């Protein structure tokens, strides 16, 4: 299955997605944050595509916006797609997908911890990597400054 | 002659004091001697274990302090003595402090019955084996107390595991001993050894004795809390198990007692199966104190077997431990007793 075929199939499932990178090694999809749960569910449950393996969940600070990049893979076809969701900087909030992909559970905690992206309906957005009493903001954001950081 | 050394001491003491005072002094002397034996035995066995472990594990083991690293354990003991005794705040402090003494006291009490040679046995009671098994089961209380009183969950789990383990494996040890008692017809240790002059019990009682020996070795390993039955400590699961919160000398008591217990189990095995201090074919029976040599050799042989187990096998899980005891060892043991009784009845023993 080529990237274009995947693109056509996904377009049939859900509209309003922005595609790019058909000629590169994986397809990139950008979507609205309201649709992410819907898209994920459909991608996973679709018989032909069956993107059932959450390869990674990456929080990104896009500058103006925050966002999450999901990499989904199909165990059957071994095709990889990249889904980008953006949210505004203040009160950043994205729907959780941990009930669709259990693998997302701890990754979402990580993204929340480092970027301050709140995952709606996630049961326990605790401090995982940082100390429990951490209150100095979100260290992976680009505007985060700390005197201990080695500035070059 | 050397044989008279005990009578010499006795007469010497009588010259200076009354008979009763002499008796008490002698008791104290013997107690002190046994305390010394306890300490030296413990340290030597720790050294042996570490050395043997080294060779098993492609290393050398302690070899820096003294010849062959013999003083390494003494250095360790000195270090432990000098260490601060710590404990948890919420520990049940009295029980916490008493607990190690249960273990060493029982180990010492059992040690009194061990026949190092024909001449050296402090307490030759006519219910010797019975006394040994009953005393050795008191030691568990020390471990149990340590687990409870430390107020540490790891200790508690360790302590609870001991309870389960001891209740089960006391049975097997006891029944393996009973099997041999059926053959011997006596509980007195010196008599049991005397009976083996014609041949060790492991040969006299052939198949049932061999089975009893194997069961005794397995259950004995469990009794002395060694791999594969070291669930009580289980360092990869419970940190250090029941003695997690013990430090310094309190810890050393447990540590030494563990090794002395191993020595006691090995001695019982030697007494029951390999003729105690008897030399093979009676070659050195005429020489006094030669028994000590043979006894040591045999005990070290059995202890080496324990060590071999320890450095080869993985650890059981708690339910598998119970399965092994109740589904395998105990039924086999019962059948074995009947077999042995039949053999003795029919006169099939050698």
């Amino acid at each position, binding site marked *: 299955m080529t990237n274009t075929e995947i693109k056509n199939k996904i377009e049939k499932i859900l509209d309003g997605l922005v595609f790019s990178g058909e000629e590169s090694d994986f397809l990139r999809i950008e979507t609205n944050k309201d649709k992410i749960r819907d898209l994920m569910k459909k991608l996973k449950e679709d018989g032909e595509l069956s993107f059932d393996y959450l*390869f990674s969940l990456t929080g990104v600070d896009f500058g103006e916006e925050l966002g999450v*990049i999901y990499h989904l893979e199909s165990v059957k076809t071994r095709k990889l797609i990249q889904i980008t969701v953006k949210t505004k900087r203040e009160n950043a909030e994205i729907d959780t997908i941990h009930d669709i992909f259990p693998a997302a559970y701890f990754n979402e905690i990580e993204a929340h911890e480092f970027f301050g992206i709140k995952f709606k309906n996630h049961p326990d957005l605790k401090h995982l990597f940082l100390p429990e009493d951490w209150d100095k903001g979100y260290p992976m954001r680009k505007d985060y400054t700390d005197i201990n950081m080695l500035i070059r | 002659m050397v044989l008279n050394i005990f009578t010499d001491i006795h007469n010497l003491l009588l010259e200076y004091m009354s008979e009763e005072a002499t008796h008490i002094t002698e008791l104290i002397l013997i107690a002190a001697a046994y305390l010394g034996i306890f300490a030296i035995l413990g340290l030597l066995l720790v050294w042996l274990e570490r050395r043997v472990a080294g060779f098993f594990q492609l290393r050398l083991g302690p070899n820096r302090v003294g010849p062959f690293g013999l003083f390494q354990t003494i250095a360790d003991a000195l270090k432990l003595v000098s260490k601060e005794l710590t404990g948890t705040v919420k520990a049940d402090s009295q029980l916490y402090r008493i607990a190690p003494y249960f273990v060493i006291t029982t180990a010492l009490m059992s040690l009194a019955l061990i026949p190092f040679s024909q001449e050296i046995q402090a307490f030759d009671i006519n219910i010797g084996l019975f006394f040994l098994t009953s005393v050795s089961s008191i030691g568990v209380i020390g471990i149990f107390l340590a687990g409870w009183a430390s107020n540490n969950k*790891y200790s508690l789990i360790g302590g609870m595991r001991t309870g389960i383990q001891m209740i089960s494996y006391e049975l097997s040890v006891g029944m393996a001993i009973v099997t041999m008692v059926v053959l011997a017809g006596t509980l007195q240790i010196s008599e049991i050894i005397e009976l083996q002059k014609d041949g060790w019990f492991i040969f006299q009682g052939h198949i049932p004795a061999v089975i009893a020996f194997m069961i005794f070795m397995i259950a004995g390993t469990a009794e002395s809390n060694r791999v594969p039955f070291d669930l009580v400590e289980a360092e990869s699961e419970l940190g250090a198990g029941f003695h997690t919160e013990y430090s310094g000398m309190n810890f050393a008591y447990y540590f030494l007692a563990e090794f002395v217990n191993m020595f006691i189990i090995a001695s019982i095995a030697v007494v029951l199966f390999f003729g105690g201090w008897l030399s093979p074919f009676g070659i050195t029976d005429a020489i006094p104190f030669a028994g000590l040599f043979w006894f040591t050799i045999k005990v070290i042989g059995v202890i080496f077997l324990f060590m071999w187990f320890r450095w080869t096998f993985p650890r059981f899980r708690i339910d598998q431990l119970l399965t092994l005891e109740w589904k395998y060892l105990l039924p086999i043991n019962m059948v074995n007793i009947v077999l042995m009784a039949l053999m003795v009845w029919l006169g099939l023993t050698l």
Partner: protein
Amino acid sequence: MEEFLTDQLKTQEYFLNMGPQHPATHGVLRLLLKLDGEIIRNVDMDLGFIHRSIEKMCERNTYKQIIHLTDRLDYLSSHMNNEAVCLLVEKALNIEVSDRIKVIRTMMDELTRISSHVLWWGVMGMDIGALTTFMYGFREREMINDIFEETCGARLTMNYNVIGGLRYDLHENFVKRVKEFIKHFKKKLPEYDKLLTNNVIFRKRIEGVGYISEKDAVAYGLNGPTARGSGVSCDIRKIHPYSAYDRVDFEEVIFTEGDSYARYKVRIQEMWQSLSILEQLVDKIPEGEYRVKTKAVIKLPEGDYLQRVEAARGDFGIFVKSTGQKFPYRVKFRSPGFANLTALNKMTQGLKIADLVAVLSTIDIVVPDIDR
């Protein structure tokens, strides 16, 4: 009677704090266990005791400088981690490396895999209680470490890959030493089976323990030998061959039982496979340059890049978002251990504490890899 017991005997679930200083947690992992007696009801984890924020550090480092940081992630598969960065940049900039580089990288990968698995085997034995296996595992590991040290200059953080090739050419003793190792290891690997794999106590301890189904394995994002023990085919060396993996003949080891023993068997078999790859390549290292000249300042064109390699623990991925600068905008290390650890709770439901230790060691975690 049953009712009486439940009424009168009040049992209580309690929490046990396992780690961060605990021998079975392989470093500084903290597990919060909810226990009912010895039976595990829930496992929660607390990470980050050696979190160094390598991802953030990468954002202020050039691509060349990132490489040595990846050594410090999964230190037991440092070569693969290095290679992932190099492959990513080489692919992005269309740098074609010579066959010699590819073959050497593959051989180093497999040596690293063996050394990692050998260490895992030793530690696994130790976790189960057989202390001697640790030293036997280290005997082989030392041999490999010597090979590494002679060629790369370090035993653990090898840092041998550079963008466009390798830091040094192979040492002249390399081939001889690898052949020696193959001969030695072929004799010792059956010993592993005799000592541990076939041991009845060991088998009873891990057979049927820590089961995870194929479906769950995919859902939880398991990868590497852990997933292959559940029957998921996920070997990146087969799916997206890199370096010289397309020209060697090896099998992807898959067992379908899904328990700890299956994961154990996968790793043992993988050692045999790695050995066979080494055998195929050791005599056929092509001549050629060991390093391609690259620009002094490497800038990736704007875009998203992803490179995956099969590290010893599984599917190591590196995702780079570049804005065309000499520093990456965002680097994400997709660590195999982290994904595998998320399934721990699922695997250990209703097992005993001793089983948790066994399952944890068959997952084969490396905490720096998880904490990043």
